[in-house]
């Protein structure tokens, strides 16, 4: 494979010709910029991505730092203030047990975001591992890609439901209810969503492997492990970053869907999906209770999707600079 952008540079002029030569090398006017500075410049011009990034950052801060400012206990029951609409004491109202909705939304957001991010990391790790192994080692390619195809042919949502239902008891018994369910849901989502990443990474690795710099690295005796860590991985980081954002969105939606079907976290352990599910029964009295967690989920996913869109454009050198 030849590189189209590579043009042979003239041999560096020697000292004598440098001063009075007919064609002196032009001095670069600006210091060289790293790839990430370029990416940031491109990213800043994508309005949607900037807005998405800011909104996502805001949600993360509100959810993780908010409880320090709004220090009501999300599980404190107050029967005298049941099913309240928005008041000054409870800006987002209270639920059927008089628990403060604002505190519950923050607590729920912590769980939802934590599940989303952890599950995404797991899926990313599995996907990159399978993709790099399949792309780099020819002998593993066939079998790993067959497995990927098999996973893609599985009906994921039904299997996810079955998995969550089956392993709920044993895992809660070993790790405690909250940690057990957390591990279960993160693993279930991670194990069922690594396939697209694996396919993209494999394709990129297959192309990278034939490039000259890999050959050059091999000629100086780079081991396979170092080759992957030093040369392959940094070059496939952009598709991985893009699928990371899509992975968060996917994981948050899947977790809320599971909670919404009543198969996610237990009732006293709020997540956005669970809050929405619980609010459906009180839809006639307090419709705003349905709307708030729904908007929280949608806004997070929307902002992450825009972020991913902008990152994809920023990381694609063919679009960059346009």
């Amino acid at each position, binding site marked *: 494979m030849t590189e189209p952008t590579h043009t042979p540079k003239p041999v560096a002029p020697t000292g004598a010709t440098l001063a009075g030569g007919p064609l002196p090398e032009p001095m670069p006017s600006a210091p060289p910029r790293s790839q990430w500075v370029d990416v940031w410049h491109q990213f800043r011009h994508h309005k949607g991505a900037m807005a998405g990034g800011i909104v996502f950052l805001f949600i993360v801060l509100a959810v993780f730092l908010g409880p320090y400012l709004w220090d009501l206990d999300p599980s404190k029951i107050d029967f005298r203030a049941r099913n309240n609409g928005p008041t000054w004491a409870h800006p987002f109202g209270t639920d059927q047990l008089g628990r403060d909705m604002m505190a519950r939304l923050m607590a729920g957001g912590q769980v939802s975001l934590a599940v989303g991010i952890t599950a995404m990391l797991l899926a990313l790790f599995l996907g990159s591992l399978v993709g790099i192994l399949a792309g780099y080692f020819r002998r593993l390619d066939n079998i790993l890609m067959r497995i990927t195809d098999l996973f893609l*042919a599985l009906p994921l949502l039904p299997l996810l439901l079955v998995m969550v239902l089956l392993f709920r008891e*044993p895992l809660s018994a070993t790790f405690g209810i909250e940690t057990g369910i957390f591990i279960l849901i993160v693993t279930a989502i991670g194990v069922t969503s690594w396939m697209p990443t694996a396919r993209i990474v494999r394709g990129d690795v297959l192309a990278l492997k034939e490039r000259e710099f890999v050959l050059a690295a091999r000629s100086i005796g780079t081991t396979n492990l170092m080759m992957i860590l030093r040369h392959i991985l940094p070059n496939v980081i952009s598709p991985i970053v893009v699928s990371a954002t899509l992975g968060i969105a996917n994981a948050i*939606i899947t977790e809320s869907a599971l909670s919404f079907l009543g198969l996610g976290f237990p009732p006293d352990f709020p997540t956005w*999906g669970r809050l*929405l599910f619980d609010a459906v029964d009180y*839809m006639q009295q307090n419709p705003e209770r*349905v709307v708030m967690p*729904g908007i929280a989920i*949608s806004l997070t996913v*929307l902002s992450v999707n825009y972020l991913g869109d902008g990152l994809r454009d920023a990381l694609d050198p063919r679009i960059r600079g346009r």
Partner: protein
Amino acid sequence: MLNFTIRRLIIAVPTLLFIAVVIFGLLQLAPGDPMAQVPLTVPPEVKERMREALGLGQPIHIQFWKWLVQFFWVEPQVLIDHIFGSHFADGKLRVLSWQTRSPVMDIVVQRMPQTLWVVGMSYIVGILIALPIGIYSAYRQYSIFDQLGTFIAMIGFSVPTFFTGVLLIVIFSVNMDHGSFWWFPSIYDTTLKVTDWASFGQQIRQMAMPVTVLALYNAAQISRFMRASMLDNLNQDYVRTARAKGVGERAVVMVHVLRNSLIPVVTVIALGVPQVFGGAIITEQVFKVNGLGQLLIGAIEANDLPMVQTLTFIFAVLIVLFNLIADVLYGILDPRIRYD
């Protein structure tokens, strides 16, 4: 092409077998006991006999083999009997649900029409919305229409169906005046029989909300693919050639470009069909449509293993089948693609 189709069909067999094994293996780990609902007054030895009657006493591989035989050998015979009135399957054991003790496939056949009506209709509506939007926003790239379309599509696949569904219920069932034209039922009534115009209208009304929710979600995805595919083709040389030789703008876009851009979109649509069945599980739950998705949720909650096994496997068959259909369609529609 035929060769390719046959080869893919042969590969599909081990794939499906493997999936069946995976599902069966997962379900074998299930902690639930199908006898849990039986009253405590039933003596243990009777319980043991009931357990054996369900086929639970045997080793796992025999149970799996029996399920395979029942699903792939007995059920087709039942189907043939049903169509031709023959008696192949008489007295043979079918896949039985533990909940109802009746054949799983009979229940599936009962539930199928609701799912097909609601989900199928929503997919068709979604496609009908998505194609014009995709075409127009690609033709006027970066126009206000395109920006708006992009934004709405982004919202469409960011907002989960369980939220749009509940939101529609809040607006059109809860807050709307019951006598108003804009009031829609939030629960799908399966017993409604369409006999005249009034009941037909009722049927349309009760389908309106679930179909809207799913159609929006599908339209968002398909319109993005349509737009990207149109953009790819609009910049091709043949478009310039067509314009240069004086073909009308309408014919250039609607005949030359559209036909070429539909090729990948058609395969995407085919690939999406099984996912629609999966995604419909949630929408069916929201609007209480007693279709296949609700059947699956109910079976999972009731620990009805044969039902879960059969339904999940049917979903898997759909996925493999539509993957194959998408590949074959691609080959048929695009003569540049050669599989051999």
